[in-house]
């Protein structure tokens, strides 16, 4: 291969970047020994990596010759894909790690016959865990197996067993065991049940447990070696969990019996301590009776086993599916849940009380002080259904009634369902709903927090935080994960003459448009000559009788039917605010929006308007002009008047965001209409084919969610790319900018009928 020829091909591959001759020479040096086929594929991959990271591309070139020694050229793309994924999630070092030692880090994974990696398994294991737990549980990878009851931490990969199926089963078994621990109360044994044992230990250790709410970790502190005590307890609990799972999930335990045996033998055999062999028997299911019956029994078992421990004897390592106990983490989650439940309960109750207060007609609307403390603390009380039952004389509530009531001034106030659930949750945790919660809520409602309006937004103020979106890289045929961040911003409305002058300018058109749109409002019409219908079609009947007399075959379509088509349309307009719309294009777009809003006000379809712009992937911006259900009022008019050109046109993220908004909306027709003046383009590499393909993919995603994308463009070159992006019939090209305002409402009308 000629060096110069290769240099030229390489330079072409990294266009539009241009490198010095000596830089090129250095880069292509490792490629010289490659065959033509390998070289072609390598250069194809260079086009993929180069725009992402130059230094990563350099590393790739260094390693590619070595990689091609064990990879076929057509496997190169998979390798690069994996490297780029690693780069985007873990930075340059992670990418390089995958490039180094291709054999160890990539190829064996590609072959990967036995190993199961967490990300592959998580897709189906996460719903499995949620199904078992009965409420959403997160799965995460971590160095140790444990659960804090909200998340289950699992190893990043499993390769302990000889087959892939078994390794997957081990994941499943691990989750099931963590579920068993949570359900059986391993983390919260009743220390009261084990009172004599606790007392004895307290005497030995010369210290006492905290009386208020003794926690398991403190109990272990009573032993000379808390760590060993904890491990023994966990082992006993594992036996109990195994017995429980055998009853609850017989299929799982049957499938896993061989691998359970394999694992338990590895860890427990060779120990002659009686406890271990008993536990081993029960984990394996030989003698299920030997498992402790309750957490308290496990505590007792632990005390015996601890006493029997020989000096210096080590306790076997935990079984892989058993994991470790992380009591601190469990406690933390519990505390967090308690705090959250408390905060939620207080705000929900406060807003309930707030609305109740608001219903009391008071002249002193401005004077908050007199409006609020209608309820004094002692008068409010939360009644639990159980307590209500115990009350003498009151009629017994039905078995299915689970309603909680709040009494205020001796009147019963039924709680909404959400609040009831919260109260129940708190009750389960603490045994009662503390009076302090209720008094805080009353205090809060007094401040009118629930009724308070958010402060008015300033120019460009961020709303609702940042949304992260993937971006489609067509060269890789895969997403760049979490690539763009899109922030939702507010446009500060301005007052001016714009709206007024637009209305005056298009007065005649508006009258016509409004009439047309009003006609669309209810589509009720009588359809004549139907086989079935609400009423008899007299014309058809007369004709049919005449035909009969005349000896002809009479028609059977004799009825009138009232056909009603309820409009069910939701539309979002996405307006290009790039700097190229400066001047009369921008004005035409604004005028078009005014006409559109005026016409749609006559129709009543829910619609929203958003503008988009931004610069670079880290700062794509979506400007809120009108939400779907926001009324068309002076604020919205002010925002339209305030629309001004901004920066670049990164179309993918705003389309993905609006797709998400629309897909949550229920309507028969969901429209996403883009009004644009040119190609998608951004300051960084977002241009040309890349930008068009990403936009196209975002639109395909929208279509797959049942949303119809449509584009209105005034770009003269649009024909080159827009059909490819939107599909042949899903766009319209308006060649004269001044026609835009009149055309847009018309287009909307034709699209939705």
């Amino acid at each position, binding site marked *: 291969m000629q060096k110069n020829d290769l240099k030229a091909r390489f330079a072409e591959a990294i266009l539009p970047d241009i490198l010095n001759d000596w830089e090129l020479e250095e880069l292509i040096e490792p490629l010289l020994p490659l065959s033509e086929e390998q070289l072609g594929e390598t250069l194809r991959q260079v086009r993929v990596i180069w725009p992402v990271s130059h230094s990563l591309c350099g590393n790739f070139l260094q390693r590619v010759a070595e990689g091609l020694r064990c990879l076929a050229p057509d496997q190169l793309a998979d390798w690069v894909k994996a490297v780029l994924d690693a780069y985007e999630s873990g930075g340059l070092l992670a990418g390089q790690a995958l490039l180094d030692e291709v054999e160890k880090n990539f190829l064996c994974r590609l072959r990967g016959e036995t190993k199961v990696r967490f990300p592959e398994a998580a897709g189906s294991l*996460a*719903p499995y865990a949620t199904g*078992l737990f009965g409420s959403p549980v997160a799965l995460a990878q971590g160095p140790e197996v444990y659960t804090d009851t909200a998340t289950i931490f699992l190893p990043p990969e499993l390769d302990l067993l000889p087959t892939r199926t078994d390794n997957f089963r081990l994941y499943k078994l691990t989750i099931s065991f963590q579920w068993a621990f949570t359900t059986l109360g391993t983390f919260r044994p009743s220390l009261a049940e084990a009172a004599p044992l606790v007392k004895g230990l307290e005497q030995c250790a010369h210290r006492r447990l905290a009386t208020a709410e003794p926690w398991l970790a403190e109990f272990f502190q009573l032993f000379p070696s808390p760590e060993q005590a904890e491990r023994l307890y966990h082992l006993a609990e594992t036996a109990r969990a195994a017995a429980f799972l055998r009853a609850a999930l017989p299929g799982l335990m049957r499938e896993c019996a061989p691998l359970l045996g394999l694992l338990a033998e590895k860890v427990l055999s060779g120990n002659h301590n009686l406890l271990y062999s008993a536990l081993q028997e029960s984990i394996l299911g030989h003698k299920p009776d030997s498992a402790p019956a309750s957490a308290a029994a496990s505590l007792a078992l632990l005390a015996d086993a601890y006493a029997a421990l020989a000096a210096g004897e080590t306790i076997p390592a935990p079984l892989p599916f058993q994991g470790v106990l992380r009591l601190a983490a469990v406690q933390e989650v519990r505390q967090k849940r308690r705090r959250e439940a408390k905060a939620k309960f207080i705000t929900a109750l406060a807003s309930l009380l707030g609305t109740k207060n608001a219903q009391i007609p008071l002249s002193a609307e401005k004077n908050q002080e007199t409006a609020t403390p209608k309820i004094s603390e002692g008068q409010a009380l939360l009644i639990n259904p159980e307590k209500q039952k115990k009350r003498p004389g009151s009629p017994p509530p039905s078995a299915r009634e689970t309603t909680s009531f709040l009494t205020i001034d001796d009147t019963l106030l039924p709680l909404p369902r959400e609040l009831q659930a919260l109260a129940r949750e708190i009750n389960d945790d603490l045994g009662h709903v503390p009076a302090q919660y209720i008094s805080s809520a009353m205090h809060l409602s007094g401040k009118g927090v629930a009724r308070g309006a958010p402060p008015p937004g300033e120019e460009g103020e961020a709303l609702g935080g940042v949304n992260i979106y993937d971006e489609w890289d067509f060269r890789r045929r895969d997403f760049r994960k979490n690539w763009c961040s899109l922030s939702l911003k507010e446009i500060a409305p301005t007052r001016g003459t714009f709206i007024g002058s637009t209305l005056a300018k298009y007065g005649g058109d508006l009258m016509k448009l409004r009439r047309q749109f009003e006609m669309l409002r209810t589509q009720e019409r009588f359809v004549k000559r139907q086989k079935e219908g609400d009423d008899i079609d007299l014309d058809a009947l007369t004709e049919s009788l005449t035909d009969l007399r005349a000896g002809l075959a009479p028609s059977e379509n004799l009825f009138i039917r009232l056909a009603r088509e309820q409009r069910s349309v939701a539309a979002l307009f996405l307006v290009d605010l790039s700097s190229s719309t400066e001047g009369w294009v921008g004005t035409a777009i604004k005028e078009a929006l005014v006409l559109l809003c005026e016409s749609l006000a006559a129709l009543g379809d829910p619609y929203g308007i958003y503008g988009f712009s931004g610069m670079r992937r880290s700062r794509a911006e979506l400007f809120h002009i009108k939400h779907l259900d926001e009324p068309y009022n002076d604020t919205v008019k002010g925002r339209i008047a305030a629309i001004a050109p901004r920066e670049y046109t990164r179309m993918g993220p705003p389309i993905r965001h609006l797709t998400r908004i629309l897909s949550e909306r229920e309507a028969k027709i969901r429209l996403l209409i883009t009004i644009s003046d040119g190609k998608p383009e951004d300051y960084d590499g977002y241009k040309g084919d890349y930008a068009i393909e990403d936009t196209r993919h975002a639109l395909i995603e929208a279509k797959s969610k049942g949303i119809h994308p449509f584009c209105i463009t005034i770009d003269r070159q649009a024909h080159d790319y827009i059909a490819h992006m939107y599909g042949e019939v899903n766009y319209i090209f308006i060649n004269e900018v001044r026609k835009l305002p009149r055309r847009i409402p018309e287009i909307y009308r034709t699209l939705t009928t």
Partner: protein
Amino acid sequence: MRGKELKIEEHLIVDKPFYLEQGEELPIARAAHENGLPILLKGPTGCGKSRFMQRLAWELQRPLITVSCHDDLSTSDLVGRYLIRGGEAVWLDGPLTKAVRNGALCYLDEIVEARKDTTVVIHPLADDRRELPIEKLGELLTAPPEFMLAISYNPGYQSVLKDLKQSTRQRFVSLEFAYPPEELETAIVKSESGLDAERATRLVRLAAMTRSLKDSGLPEGASTRLLIHAGKLIKAGIAERTAIRATITETLTDEHEMLAALEELVSSLF
């Protein structure tokens, strides 16, 4: 329409339908019937609303006329219409009119599916007037004391388009149906499918697991009806896992990963 008409006697339920009470719905419904009040049954699909109506009709010894509502159901579909027969206009009673004339129970299943303007015809029937005006005949029917109106809907859809109007729902005595508690559901599955208690329990447990996946990827959990289907297939000699795949997992979702997860749950239990 010109086929043979079902006679009202054919709507009578002769054999006692199997129904296990969840709460006090039967006494409430009987009391509502005595006092001429209409009832509204709320609850997820396949939890026993229709079976409850059959049982109620059997206990009251009244015919039961069920109308499954759909989005094209018009007022004439309920009240009746003129047909042309041999050159003459003949009036044909709709199911609602037929029920009123005969003092039957009229059950409008999934009422929210019907158009909103259709729902309004039941208003005068559902309050203390208990009347059904038939405009085209110029007739005003007054319902006999035996007549009872019942409607059902599934609040789980949570769709703005398909919510029941306040003016409609505030005329009814509401009975909430949920999936029955574990023991009760086991008894139902056992009795309906003829399966042994042990396997019925496991089916019910599986259902509870799928129900907790609602909103985490499944639109709805397995209903009691699905469990009965599964039980019947198992009883007929189909292998457990195969039967459950056919009746429950594949019915609930098409999504690949969710299917795999459900399969894992099934293989854990069976």
